[in-house]
């Protein structure tokens, strides 16, 4: 039951809300539109909003000039791969902490969270030197491993809060039904937790996709994902806005769509369950 409100007031509030939302969204929309302009139209004064020659040439150009697909491939491999690895470690850990808690489980969870508080610059130097000496600089494995570690506390925390909502009775029933621990996790826990695991995975992919500190510092070309690809536009030659926009659209579109699907779970993941 909403508060009583006249239709007039509701329309007014609606217009205001849409204006605010439009302003917030506008830079993304503008990037999207600009990506279909010629470079000349892109810098035209006054700006051309909708009436210009729509063209796809920027997208073709971006791919041919800087091999967008390679970077996109790296982004996908890194963000999906790192988090699949992460889940393999995190699901058992979250099971253990949610369903067989010990005296120190709470401290352990807090400690895991605290690793997330470590600013990256605090460990940039040793990680950089270690990677250099181990030959991991600019390698997908090395960067994927870092991304996995970055997200591991979030994975464990989110899974933990989801698992906590599953009644332990059901797992005990499986035990009474003769299920081994492996069968209990595979046949009973996992199917029940699929929605939670999926949204955890989604959030982790978004975070990895957009991670820019480590990817910019540890990857130069072979393993560079889209963050680095875009950064290469910061020192461009000639007209480049339309191409920048096309590249940006390509870089953010997949994750924007994923993000829209996962926004409900996002709140919980980003606040470590403190706001639901």
């Amino acid at each position, binding site marked *: 039951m909403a*508060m009583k*409100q006249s239709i007039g007031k*509701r329309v007014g*509030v*609606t217009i*205001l*809300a849409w204006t*605010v*939302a439009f302003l*917030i969204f506008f*830079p*993304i929309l*503008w990037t999207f539109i600009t990506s279909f302009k010629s470079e000349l139209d892109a*810098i035209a*004064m006054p*700006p051309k909003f909708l009436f210009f020659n729509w063209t796809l040439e920027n997208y073709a150009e971006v791919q041919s000039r800087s091999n967008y697909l390679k970077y996109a491939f790296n982004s996908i491999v890194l963000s999906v791969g790192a988090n699949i690895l992460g889940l393999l*470690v995190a699901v*058992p850990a979250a099971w*253990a*902490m949610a369903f*067989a*808690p010990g005296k120190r489980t*709470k401290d*352990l969870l*807090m*400690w*895991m969270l*605290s690793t*997330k*508080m470590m*600013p*990256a*610059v*605090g*460990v*940039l*130097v*040793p990680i*950089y030197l270690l990677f250099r000496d181990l030959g991991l600089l600019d390698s997908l494995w090395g960067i994927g491993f870092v991304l996995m*570690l970055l997200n591991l506390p979030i994975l464990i925390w989110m899974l933990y809060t989801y698992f906590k909502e599953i009644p332990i009775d059901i797992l005990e029933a499986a035990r009474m039904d003769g299920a081994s621990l492996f069968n209990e996790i595979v046949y009973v826990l996992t199917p029940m937790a699929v929605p939670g695991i999926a949204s955890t995975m989604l959030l982790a992919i978004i975070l990895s*996709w957009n991670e*820019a*500190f480590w990817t*910019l510092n540890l990857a130069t070309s072979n393993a560079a994902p889209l*963050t680095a690809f875009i*950064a290469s*536009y*910061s020192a461009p030659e000639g007209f480049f*806005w339309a191409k*920048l926009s096309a590249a940006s659209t390509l870089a953010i579109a997949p*994750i*924007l769509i994923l*993000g*829209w699907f996962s926004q409900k779970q*996002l709140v919980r993941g*980003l*606040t470590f369950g*403190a*706001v*639901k």
Partner: protein
Amino acid sequence: MATQQTSAAARVLVAPSVVLLFLWMIVPLAMTLYFSSLRYSLLDAENIGFVGLQNYTAFLSDPDFTSALLNTLILVGSVLAISVGGGILVALLMDQPVFGQNALRLMVIAPFFVMPTVSALVWKNLLMNPDSGLFAWIARSFGLEPVVWFTNYPMLSVIIVVSWEWLPFASLILLTALQSLDEEQKEAAQLDGAGPFSYFFYIVLPHIARAITVVILIETIFLLSVFAEIYVTTGGGPGVATTNIPFLVYKEALLNFDVGSASAGGIVAVVLANIVAIFLMRIVGRNLEG
């Protein structure tokens, strides 16, 4: 409550995560601490030696550090103020019964998903460019001289970009908190004759106070390490006008190749972050009880 069998299994299952995170946190941190006590330049790798706290005294007394610290605080403080203040307003607006609420939510949350390098470049070029940017056109159409954003107001420009990235986060979380406000409480307050302002200050604000705290703390952690936005727009300049601590450490390490000094800076950043972290952990920890 569990049997010994399950607790034994639990320990085995937790172990990989604990070992990985331990190595990830402790080993590099110990190395950073160790490096921070060395004279260690990658350009002069033969000449490594113990110098005690000298890197710290040098780093801390460097005027660049003072300005980087100040820049960090200004950046964090301003973005917090803008995103939390704006976030409350946006959340209140979105919580009204408006037409097309879901579409609105999608539009408002969108900037959060944009990777930082994209946001920074789009703002710097498409919007804030003094010749052909959209803002310049708006200024001209009002007969004003366009602002040369990143040259004349570099810090303000960075703050605007970063605020745009974080406003959606604050809005979304505060909106979620608002929506958990009991409808009956709203109606009771109406019956008690509360006007919109007293309703906001006595009912709404206390209800979302915790969410606000959480937003502030989490944003602070991320804002203390803003890097990519500066990297692709100003490169820390002009001069050191937009160099914050992460960027300073990056410059020392990967541009000046001074491992010792960069490590000392890294430790300073860790100390700063930990001060915030302690507060966040208290709040999350309290939540764990319930």
